[in-house]
């Protein structure tokens, strides 16, 4: 198998949500001594991008999305040691702290956004559901996050998204983070109202939004670890 065939096989394994194949091909690439950054960028990322397209067209649904994200995770678990050995970093679009706001135990949408962001190369810190607003901020400060993503599924808890932004302002650190909001009752208009930087309707849109907002802070390949 030449390199192009290997890359297209990786892309297809992600599209098919085939974790075994995605992981196996990653091991082959490592064995062959290929540059893991290139493997990720040319082999796997095009797969997750295609999965996003298929979801947007209504051809893929939640099970396919999760299977593809899992396949991506499998491949990354093989490639990460190789990245570390080569003192390389994958193209990381940034660090994300994500959770469902306090008072709200719904986590299906949030989990999906976290999985897709991770599959798309973001470093994700998932705080779970019913997360105290202070915890979002403490975690973001601790890891040097680029994004804080707050999910709310209830009309009664979406106000906490707005409070989160207020709390960041009170602490004088609002501008350090890009705050994204999501969840059934949220909307672009609500994001503006809440003082957030953006709103995404679903997990695929969230990846696009985060990518578009990822600033110069994003890492570059080959940068010292």
């Amino acid at each position: 198998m030449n390199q192009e065939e290997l890359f297209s096989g990786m892309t297809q394994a992600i599209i098919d949500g085939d974790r075994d194949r995605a992981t196996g091909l990653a091991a082959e690439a490592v064995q062959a001594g290929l540059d893991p950054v290139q493997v990720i960028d040319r082999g796997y990322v095009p797969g997750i991008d295609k999965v996003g397209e298929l979801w947007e067209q209504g051809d893929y649904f939640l099970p396919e999305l999760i299977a593809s994200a899992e396949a991506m995770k499998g491949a990354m678990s093989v490639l990460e040691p190789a990245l570390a050995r080569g003192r390389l970093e994958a193209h990381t679009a940034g660090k994300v702290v994500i959770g469902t706001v306090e008072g709200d135990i719904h986590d299906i949408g949030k989990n999906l956004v976290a999985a897709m962001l991770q599959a798309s190369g973001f470093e994700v810190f998932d705080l779970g559901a019913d997360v105290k607003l202070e915890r979002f901020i403490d975690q973001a400060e601790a890891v040097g996050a680029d994004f804080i993503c707050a999910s709310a599924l209830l009309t009664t808890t979406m106000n906490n998204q707005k409070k989160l932004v207020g709390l960041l302002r009170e602490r004088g650190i609002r501008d350090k983070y890009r705050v994204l909001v999501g969840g059934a009752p949220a909307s672009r208009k609500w994001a503006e109202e809440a003082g957030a930087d953006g709103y995404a309707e679903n997990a695929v849109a969230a990846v696009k939004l985060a990518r578009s907002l990822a600033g110069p802070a994003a890492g570059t390949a080959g940068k010292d670890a």
Partner: protein
Amino acid sequence: MNGSLLDLAKARTVLMDGGLGTELMARGLPQGSPPETWDLERPDLVEDVHRRYFAAGADIVSTNSFGGSRIKLAGHGLEARAAELNVAAARLARRAAPPGKWVAGSIGPTGKFLKPQGEFTEDEFTAAFAEQAAALAEGGADILLVETQYDLREALCAVRAARRASSLPVFATMTFNALPRGYFTLMGDGVAKCAAALAEAGISALGANCSLDSERMVGAVRALRAATPLPLVAQANAGQPVLDAEGRVSYSQGLEDYVRFVPDIVAAGADFVGGCCGTTPDYINAIAEKLFRRTS
């Protein structure tokens, strides 16, 4: 009595109720608190909502037990009280029901996923739903309404559990999204697939609820009617929730616009019509006026 509910649906459109959680919040249900706790703590307020829906013209109201499976309640540490809460929910609705009116025992999703997407097995889901169904039957429900389902596999667990745990008729409503290729659940189950599998599992009526507003519900009902001869249920949302500057919630589809599409929903084949998120007793009252002026 059950037979006569399905008989009534042959004679005229049967009116269901509208949003319950939103009504309880308007009466002070605290943020993040599971509505089911009010079946024991504020039974007067829950009963008041049921009574208002009956007064507005509803033939059947749904019990305050949507999140009453032990798996869902576990999120609040209330799993051990599942049976007690569901019995209480059904008793309250029963007490509010005038003679000749009906009570639907509401069974909503667990909020968790089955393997491989999640951690749960079908046996675990089925056991939780069976406990809930038995308690709702014990409390006096006339039918069991498996509702707002986004995963056909989970809906089948609930329907089978309900059929096993009681002799009551089981209705099932799925939550569909309107996509270019048709109507699909979050998990990708299409209308025809849902209709075939749920009919096989022994439901007495099939439907769509939540997510879609009343205009989009027309198309969903049409698709369901093409897929099954079963009686159909339609409970549309009043559009999407929006918050105003003061943090008050309202829904994007106002009453008049919502009610405008109800005759089309009926013409498309719905036998049971009610509302979902954002609808109130006023919406049900307006539907009653619109439909019964039209058919009588």
